[in-house]
């Protein structure tokens, strides 16, 4: 018998998000003449409420009616909370970004809330179809957000590139998944894992082991390519710089954080449930693919970032390199690695959001539109606190001690060395050193160069709040990481290592 209360308990946060999204849209009809600030208030409120529900009802009493494709565990909870908090920050940014106002900020906030809903489902998804649908849904939201600034032709171009690239790779991933389904006759990750574990006998096509390789390996490569595109991992990252540059700064922040989060969640579940290196026959191959992905991503991202003059393009390429570090966490396939990945992702998202908030403040009112690094020149004199917050974010991305970035990288290195990947850490270290050289361009502009313009810098309240929270959290995570570390370790316990 379906008890409505228990259904609500399981899906409380999702329902809250859905209703908040509708409420924001409805509110647009009523509140529009009075301004747009209520959207952010509603969205943030809804996300906080959803997070509270997620925490309070974290253990469902009755999971009998939970659809087969969903696994409600600690990892899903952590993924949810991460997604909700990032998107709440983005809602703060959306309020101040002029590019997000047409047609309406309400629609933008509704999209953000839907994206949070998708992340929430993706966190629990353990079915190939559900993962694919959720990832693509997230992709569609990102395409819309990219083209949100309709008067800007670059935004349309960026969105088209993103759309074409994204849908092609999604199709490829679907094709790969269909092959996996073809040999295993299941889309459930656990079932797929059991099949790949046992290998040959239960195959619907009654293939022999050697023949099975010809199906599984290409399928894995195709699936990996699709996931890599979501992460903007090299060599499937080419869409990123153009899309970041053309998109409104707030949407660029979204693209820099949320699809990466979604892709990593999917990658973690897929890797650890369906094809773990320890037990699965093809686990070693998949791990090797991930190692190659991490190495190529770190190298390509770092080197390409060195050449950039535009701050958004620079962040796009540096985001590529950053994702390389996070993939290391997946490669290790250990509880340490998974927790480190989540921690690093958190710091990356905070630092990146903070920097994009500064981009909104610095370049938002510029005519003609420019996001060159030179627009940050002398920011130290125009807005010392904002410059300091950006500095903290950049140092966090470099991974300097006293920022959460250090703890995250440290932990990732620990995980990699523990599982015997010393060369992966050496590549990561070299890439971190190179990262100083490109982040330095921004620091140099802010602190050492003469001011770009004497015009006063207008900092809207919500934006200041977002920048402040990001910078303070990046430092706090570096000083007192204990609580968060323990929490992320919980997320890892449900996986068998």
């Amino acid at each position, binding site marked *: 018998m379906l008890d409505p209360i228990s259904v609500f308990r399981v899906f409380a946060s999702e329902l809250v998000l859905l209703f908040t999204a509708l409420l924001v849209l409805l509110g647009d009809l009523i509140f529009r003449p009075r301004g747009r600030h209520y959207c952010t208030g509603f969205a943030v409120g809804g996300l906080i409420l959803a997070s509270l529900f997620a925490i309070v009802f974290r253990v469902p009493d009755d999971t009998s009616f939970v659809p087969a494709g969903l696994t409600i565990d600690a990892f899903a909870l952590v993924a949810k909370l991460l997604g909700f908090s990032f998107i709440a920050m983005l809602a703060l940014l959306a309020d101040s970004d002029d590019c997000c106002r047409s047609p309406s900020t309400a629609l933008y906030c509704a999209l953000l809330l839907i994206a949070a809903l998708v992340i929430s489902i993706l966190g629990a998804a353990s079915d190939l179809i559900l993962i694919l649908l959720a990832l693509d849904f997230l992709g569609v939201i990102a395409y819309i957000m990219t083209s949100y600034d309709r008067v800007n032709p670059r935004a349309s171009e960026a969105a088209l590139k993103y759309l074409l690239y994204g849908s092609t790779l999604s199709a490829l991933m679907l094709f790969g998944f269909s092959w996996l389904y073809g040999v295993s006759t299941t889309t459930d990750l656990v079932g797929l894992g059991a099949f790949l574990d046992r290998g040959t006998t239960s195959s619907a096509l009654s293939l022999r082991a050697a023949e099975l390789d010809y199906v599984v390996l290409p399928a894995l490569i195709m699936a990996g390519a699709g996931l890599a595109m979501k992460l903007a991992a090299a060599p499937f990252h080419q869409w990123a710089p153009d899309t970041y540059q053309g998109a409104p700064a707030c949407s660029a922040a979204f693209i820099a954080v949320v699809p990466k989060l979604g892709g990593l969640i999917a990658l973690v579940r897929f890797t650890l449930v369906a094809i773990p290196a320890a037990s699965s026959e093809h686990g070693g191959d998949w791990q090797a693919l991930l190692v190659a992905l991490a190495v190529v991503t770190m190298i390509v991202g770092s080197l390409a970032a060195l050449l950039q003059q535009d701050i958004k393009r620079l962040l796009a390429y540096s985001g590529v390199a950053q994702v390389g570090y996070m993939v290391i966490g997946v490669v290790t396939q250990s509880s340490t690695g998974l927790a480190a990945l989540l921690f690093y992702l958190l710091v990356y998202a905070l630092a990146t959001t903070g920097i994009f908030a500064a981009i909104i403040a610095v370049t938002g009112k510029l005519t003609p539109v420019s996001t060159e690094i030179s627009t940050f020149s002398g920011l130290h004199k125009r807005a010392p606190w904002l410059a300091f917050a950006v500095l903290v974010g950049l140092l966090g991305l470099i991974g300097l*001690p*006293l920022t959460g970035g*250090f703890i995250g990288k440290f932990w990732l290195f620990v995980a990699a060395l523990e599982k015997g990947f010393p060369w992966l850490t050496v590549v990561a*270290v070299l890439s971190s*050193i190179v990262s100083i050289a490109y982040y330095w361009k921004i620091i*140099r502009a802010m*602190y050492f160069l003469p001011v770009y313009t004497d015009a006063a810098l207008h900092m809207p309240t919500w934006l200041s709040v977002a920048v402040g929270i990001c910078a303070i959290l990046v430092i706090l995570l570096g000083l007192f990481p204990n609580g968060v*570390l323990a929490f992320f370790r919980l997320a890892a316990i449900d996986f068998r290592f």
Partner: protein
Amino acid sequence: MQFPILSAILITPLLGALLILVIPREDARTIRRVGVAFAVISLVLATVLWVCVEQLGPDTLRLIERYPWIASFDIWYHVGVDGFSTPLVWLTAFLMTLALFYSAYVIEDRVKEYFFLFLLLETGLIGVFLALDLVLFYVFWEIGLVPMFLIIGIWGGKRRDYAAIKFFLYTLAGSVFALLAIIAIYFNTGTFDIVELARLRPFADNWLWANLAFWGLWLAFAIKIPVFPLHTWLPDAHTEAPTAGSVMLAGVLLKLGAYGMLRIGLPMFPQVFRYYVLDIPILPILALFSIVYGALVCLAQWDFKRLIAYSSVAHMGYFTLGLCAAAVSDSGTQMAAAAALNGAAWQLFSHGIITGGMFFLVGMLYERTHTRDLRAFGGFSGQMPVYYGLTLVFALASLGLPGLAGFWSELFVFRGTAQLLPLAAYIGVLGMVFTAAYILWKVIQHVFLGTFDAIRWGTLTDLKWWEQVAVAPLLVLTVVLGLYPGPLLATFDSAVTALLHVLP
């Protein structure tokens, strides 16, 4: 429970920095006063600390405080001091007080940030000398990096941004490899505790990993010391930094690397160290290169500040040489090893005060002349007699004149090295000859003697009272330590003896 004096020393500059943050930017007067006041409080605490340590005995780690910091990684807030670290902590607080006192009269631009960054730097520097947990050590090591980077980049000379990023890149490039080594050591031994690790000897049975870990750490330390050929960041950073920044760079930052060698490199990897001194003598060769090459570059250098910067390369070479000599000692040569290590440790302290003084003086001259070209100077002895007198003392101390502080380090280092590594000692003495040559010829002759260009330099004024106050304590210390080295040497010696006991 006793008063946690180490934490107090550590936190005092940080509190000062935070206090400065809340003072309005316009009130530069208060900012200066608060900055100097907190530096003085640190110095007072450091002096009290030194007295305490002398009472307790500087032969082993004292005043230990140990609390869990990041429990999930087994990282501790673990601090303590012995005969090596106490004088260095005091030196840091001492030089910082003088540097900020001097800066209070000189710096007009962005005073708030300036004092904030310097106090933050002090916390980082002192933390390195106190830390007894490898990760804590690393964290403090890097804390000092950003303030110094910004100090060079904002208040530096013409090529400041180049010098700043070079400094940053070099330091970080070295230290991240040290971080990997630290993690590897942890996996081998299961602890980050520096004291425990010196006993455990990580990778005692795995030569390859012992090598990797050793060189990872060595890279970080050697860049900071600096050892030839990793020294190229130093001339740029020292030359472009503002005067107080140069003083702290030469006086304390270089000692971080040296202290790391003393505290971590040598005790944890004595066999590896010994191997690369005796079997493949790469370490002493690099030390000799630093000494001789550094001195030769000074001879060819016409930029006054750059000359002093390169002289640091040469002087820190004596430290490395002394350390190499100590690493090869056995039970029969304990005396020589103790002498070499004492000389090396003495060099850290004496170089801090002598070169700190030299950088002050160079900076004061530059403030007046706006050039550092030695060829433009000449005959200043009549125009600036006080300046001449002060510079003469520091210059002579720098070349190791008996009766001044610099003499004892050279005496002891060569006393030990001559017995343990005779060939290296003979070559190293060459450096002393070159040092005498460039000090007398370049510094004394070109600046103070020769013809005086009255048209160009007729308006030069001698040192103001506050400039004299900034340098005078260093001068007093140089002379006192030169004439009466006993107490400081006894402090070092007890720590040296303890260190030699744990070496094989």
